[in-house]
């Protein structure tokens, strides 16, 4: 991570549009009520899609947290390095 720019998730609209879309995909409102078949890997197709959507949600939040949040990290890391060097 060599980026020096300050990043804060709340300031990036696209993060939240992405999150809302993924959340919408996480609830099975868009399937016909009562549908079970076909089964994929032994699961009803809709449940598999919801399961994949929830993994996408985890992956997305992991990625956003790791890459789009950088307020004081560089400063803190530098302080720590200086503190460590002084000891």
């Amino acid at each position: 991570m060599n980026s020096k720019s300050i990043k804060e998730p709340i300031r990036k609209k696209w993060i939240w549009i992405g999150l809302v879309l993924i959340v919408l995909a996480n609830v099975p409102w868009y399937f016909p009520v009562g549908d079970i078949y076909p089964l994929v890997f032994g699961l009803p197709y809709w449940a598999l899609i919801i399961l994949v959507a929830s993994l996408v949600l985890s992956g997305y939040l992991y990625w956003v947290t790791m890459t789009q949040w950088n307020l004081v990290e560089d400063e803190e890391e530098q302080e720590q390095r200086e503190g460590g060097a002084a000891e």
Partner: protein
Amino acid sequence: MTELKFAGLDGVIILVAYAVIMLAIGWFAGRSDKTVNNSLSNYYLAGRNLGIIALFFTLYATQYSGNTIVGYAPSAYRTGLTWLQSISFMTIIIGIYLLFAPRMYVLGKKYNFITPSDWLSHRFKSKRVTILAIFLMLWGLGNYLLEQLVAIGHAVTSLTGGTIPYQVAVVGFILVMLAYEWMGGMRAVAFTDVMQGVVLMVGVVIFLIGAIYLAGGKIGTITESIANVDPGLVGVPDLTTSINWFSMLLLVGFGAAIYPHAVQRIFASKSERTLKRSFARMAWMPPITTGLVLFIGLIGIVVIPGLDTAGSEQLVGLLANEIAGINGFFYWVMIIFFGAIVAAIISTADSVLLSFSSIVSNDLYGKYINPTAPEKKKLMVGKIAGVVVISLLLWIAWNPPGTLYEIFVLKFELLVQVFPAFVLGIYWKKMAAKPVFWGMLLGAVVAGLMTWTGHKTVMGIHGGVIGLALNFLVAVVGSILVPSAEEDDEEVAAPALTRMPTQN
């Protein structure tokens, strides 16, 4: 919970072992930092110095309680694949954290916040906003704690086959919890959480393996088998259920992120890097925790079909009995697993209790009763308040009120009402104390009345969510119409943030 035929003396031995380990960790945590009892931030926030392992596990063990297994498996049993929602509603919490945690971490470090109400009083400088928020938080925490106390008793009694009676079990474990918390504060809570979190993670996986073993060859055809029992459990749910699912995402997401003990973990982090990494890892925990528990519940439908609502509540005990009967290995694993459930409940209860004490210490006593008291004295008041509240809750747990029972169920519904003030207040300068207060009050009253009168949901939407929407509306519209009496010129964010470009 059902009496486990596999338990008894062996269960007692395991529980005693857990108790001794917890006490040892607490003693070690207190000893390793001699200054723990000198200041509020050392005791309640581990000196704002939690590293990645302790912070991650304390987030994990606090968010996932014994109820995640004992309560969620029966939910899966009763609602089938609709309980897939337990994965997304636990994951979305991290998304809600991203709305405010990055800035709140910086603010917490800059102004030395101990509790969430420190931020509210800093931001709004309004006694009634702070006091109402304190009341809602203490109420939510108190009920959360009550729930954990009842759960400890049930888990221990069934583990020991009644060898240790319910009340002795609860008192025993509470004393252990109070002892290590008294010695080491947040440091003890976080270090014991590492042990409790690992045991919980491993326990869920092993329990699942046992359940799969039990189901034999039926796993591949599990959908078919469930469809034979009740096709509704594997079919696409109806619209009201989907709306309820969305509502759960909002209620749990906003509620769990704003829990005082959750916010305090932001303050306790050693660095932004540590906090960020802990949250990022937490985003992957729901699939391997609530996701696996969902699967256990589904296997339960096939292995032990036909349980009614009350019967299904015993599902984990029933399955554990069957799994313990497989062979000697599974017998011991199940005993350790039930110990893990007790440990998971305690790891949630200790964090809630610590947070409760901190609010009494720092907010009620420290802000309004005796602001000039030395920190050591404030700390002692909080510790004693913790013991008093635990005793009171025990009394309520053993003498449950017949008619007002629903009052004690309210937690998320009330707690979540602090959200608009807490989060909008960070970013929106125009937000004023008066509308914030009325929004919070109105939201809490609506949510409380709906739950109390038995209308927990309307068309699938929870009372807490309806109250929250109203709360946002009043706070926002009010702040636009009635500008803040005094213009607060002080920059809200930390200096580092002022360099930030408005768009990127």
